[in-house]
């Protein structure tokens, strides 16, 4: 490996470690609807860090972690206290607390700029590119110092989540149940906040707080779109966080721009992909499902209208066909209705009966019968139980007819003592007798 490759390698490793730790913790923040508390804490640890650096005289030391944890817990606590004690809405109290602490941090930085080697800009967007430059020797290898810290913190995060897996899970989904079971939701909450503060401060120097915020929120949100299981959500969140680190690094190299910024943009890109293409909750799938429903309803409407034409034809005019154009109009018009007709012809539900007219096949008649039965049963049911005027029965029945399966039909029919006619005097079609083999 050449020097360039080595630099790239260590930068990516730093990104992967930091992003994964954030993504793991972020899952709980997103699930508990506390994403913005992570945002608040990562801004608010600034004064804690500055004070700790002044105290210990160096940028990496246990004092920095103590300071960060203290301020992280303080932020969570003050937000809650202002909301309870001062009657301030929770979002306002959070906004007040973290911006004030951040302002304090900026002022402290300015005052002691000569003694603290921290630059507010660097704190916000980080200089991950410089991670590989500050190395120490270990087992004969030159390893960046930040890697040690980040891997410790990442390991700590994994340990935290493994040890408290059950507690975290139950508190995230049902804090009331957790309390009833004797798990202190408050303790778990503050432990989580302390961990967030630790991760933030460990990532501070290397990657900056904006990347921490992005990684706390965006990969977990991406994972949340993709799965409904907590462990899978954690795995996917880490995967998307690592992917953001790798792709983000190379894109930033290519355009020669901020690596941390690019990593959060890539995370945003992955999130956008998930929003559109997620298998269960994605926009495309939702649109497809809606389209399927619409087409089904159009098909059923066409079958039903042809059935009614046949029914009337048997009584008087002998006409059992309906013009194609009327069918389309009855199904709400539009392109979808027009496209549905050839589809139904190819499925053998309706046939072209000459003179530009359509008629039911035997297969189509079966489906249509069930649908009209649903419609008329529902009308009878409404008439009996809701005292609606006669002319108000048709519209709700036209909506319900698509959703009554054979079981519900059976139940309604029993409830109404097997009616033969609907309230308008139309015959309710009876289901075909089951084949006796």
């Amino acid at each position, binding site marked *: 490996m050449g020097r360039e490759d080595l630099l790239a390698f260590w930068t990516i490793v730093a990104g992967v470690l930091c992003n994964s730790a954030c993504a793991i913790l972020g899952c709980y923040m997103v699930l508990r609807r506390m994403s913005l508390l992570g945002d608040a804490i990562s801004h608010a640890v600034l004064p804690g860090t500055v004070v700790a650096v002044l105290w210990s005289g160096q940028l990496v030391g246990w004092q920095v972690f103590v300071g960060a944890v203290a301020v992280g817990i303080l932020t969570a606590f003050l937000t809650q206290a202002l909301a309870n004690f001062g009657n301030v809405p929770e979002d306002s109290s959070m906004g007040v607390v973290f911006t004030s602490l951040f302002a304090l941090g900026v002022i402290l930085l300015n005052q002691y700029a000569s003694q603290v080697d921290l630059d507010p800009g660097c704190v916000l*967007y980080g200089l991950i590119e410089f991670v590989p430059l500050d190395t120490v020797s270990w087992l004969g290898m030159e390893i960046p110092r930040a890697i040690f810290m980040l891997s410790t913190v990442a390991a700590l995060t994994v340990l935290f989540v493994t040890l408290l897996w059950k507690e975290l899970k139950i508190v995230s989904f049902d804090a009331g149940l957790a309390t009833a079971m004797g798990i202190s939701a408050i303790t778990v909450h503050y432990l989580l906040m302390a961990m967030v503060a630790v991760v933030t401060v460990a990532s501070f120097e290397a990657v900056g707080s904006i*990347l921490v915020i*992005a990684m706390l*929120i965006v990969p977990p949100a991406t994972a949340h779109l993709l799965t409904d299981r907590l462990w899978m959500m954690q795995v996917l969140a880490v995967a998307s966080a690592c992917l953001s680190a790798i792709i983000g690094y190379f894109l930033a190299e290519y355009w020669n721009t901020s690596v*941390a*910024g*690019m990593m*959060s943009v890539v995370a945003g890109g992955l999130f956008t992909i998930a*929003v559109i293409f997620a298998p269960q909750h994605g926009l495309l799938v939702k649109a497809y499902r809606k389209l399927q429903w619409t087409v089904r309803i159009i098909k059923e409407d066409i079958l039903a209208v042809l059935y009614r034409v046949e029914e009337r034809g048997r009584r008087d005019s002998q006409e059992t066909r309906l013009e194609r154009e009327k069918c389309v109009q009855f199904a709400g018009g539009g392109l979808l209705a027009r496209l549905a007709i050839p589809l139904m012809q190819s499925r053998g539900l309706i046939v072209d009966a000459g003179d530009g007219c359509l008629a039911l096949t035997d297969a189509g008649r079966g489906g249509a019968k069930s649908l009209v039965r649903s419609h008329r049963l529902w009308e009878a049911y409404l008439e009996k139980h809701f005292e609606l005027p006669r002319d108000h029965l048709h519209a709700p029945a036209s909506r319900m007819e698509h959703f009554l399966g054979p079981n519900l039909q059976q139940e309604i029919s029993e409830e109404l003592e097997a009616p033969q006619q609907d309230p308008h005097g139309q015959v309710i079609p009876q289901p075909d007798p089951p084949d006796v083999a």
Partner: protein
Amino acid sequence: MLTYNTLIVLVGTSLLGASAGLVGSFAVLRRRSLTGDALAHAALPGLCLAFLVVGERSLPAMLFGAFLSGLAGIGCISALRRWTRIKEDTAIGIILSVFFGAGIVLSRCIQNLSVSGSKAGLDSYILGKTAGMIFQDVVLIAGLAAFCLAVLLLFYKEFRVVAFDPSFARVQGWPAASLDLLLMTLIAVAVVIGLPAVGVVLMASLLILPGASARFWTDELDRLLVLATIFGLLTGAVGTLISTRYSLLPAGPIIVLTGTAWFLISLFFAPRRGAIARWMLARRVHSRLGQNKLLNLLHDLSEPSWPGESAWTIEDLSSRKSWRPGQLKHLLQQAVIWGLVEFSGTGRYRLTADGWQKSAELARNQRMWELILTEHAEWSGCLANLEHTGVQECVPPEFYLQLDRELRERARYPKVLVQEK
């Protein structure tokens, strides 16, 4: 002592504080405080893009870009909330961090493109730089502040409805969504003119602090808006003056901390809604209820031997009702000071003449409530009115006389008062 430059900055920050306070109040009332934060962060990429497109540091173009991308961010937040399973707080966090990340990427690109100098210009938007304010900036700020004020006055009634009860507004046929968008536009305007002065991170607090502080001082919207505007104006002015006095301190954070200080003062010292006022009220109510409990107990114990003397030790009293530790002793001391109870020697306490009178009235009230609850349940609704616990204030005069009569018939009327009549 005020130089021309200081004066310019002073006027600029005051106007900025005033307009942010005014429009921010609505954000606070609608529980949208952090949307302002997201907007401020989301403005950054627009700022940079405008710079790239125009090719120079032109303030109006960059502010317009910032305005557009801020609004785009808000649009994304509501789209995510409506069409996906992402909750509002997560949506805000996503937009905030991803847009800001994009802004940093772009600003680094600009830094690479340009020969020198312009980097400092963009960096100042992140933490703010008031010192660079010039006369044209102040004119721009004043113009936009006037615009915000005009729109608010024009749609005052509509905003009022939407701020307090959005669902009512929708049911009544108000265009709630459009009004929301208009409100967000105003907030975006305030954010965008504030960015150069206080920067991205601290802009949110300029929106929140004046409104949240004013909320402690009043319950009425018009007063709240006026107060928030004044608070914002003063915050900007005082913060600027402090930071010029100690020239080492950056103005943006100082302005924010000034606002925080005033917020804390309001939180503690505001009349009625302030923490101290509410604490004192709670103490007064507690102490009054405790006194009533003590007097009632003494009356019930002493009444049978009336008009003879009867005195009770602390143990007698503490065994008959439950008290918090130390409460009984404190109440007795208080009652002695008020002349309702006196010390009769040998560690016993008895009612004074005043104490008899007061406790008998309390006992009458108490027994009338008992009567209402046991015999006249149809009147128990009066209990809902907790501000007035006196029966006489809660029921019509003829019913009060009836209760009075019934108590006498059952020999439950306090003996002290029977004599009196």
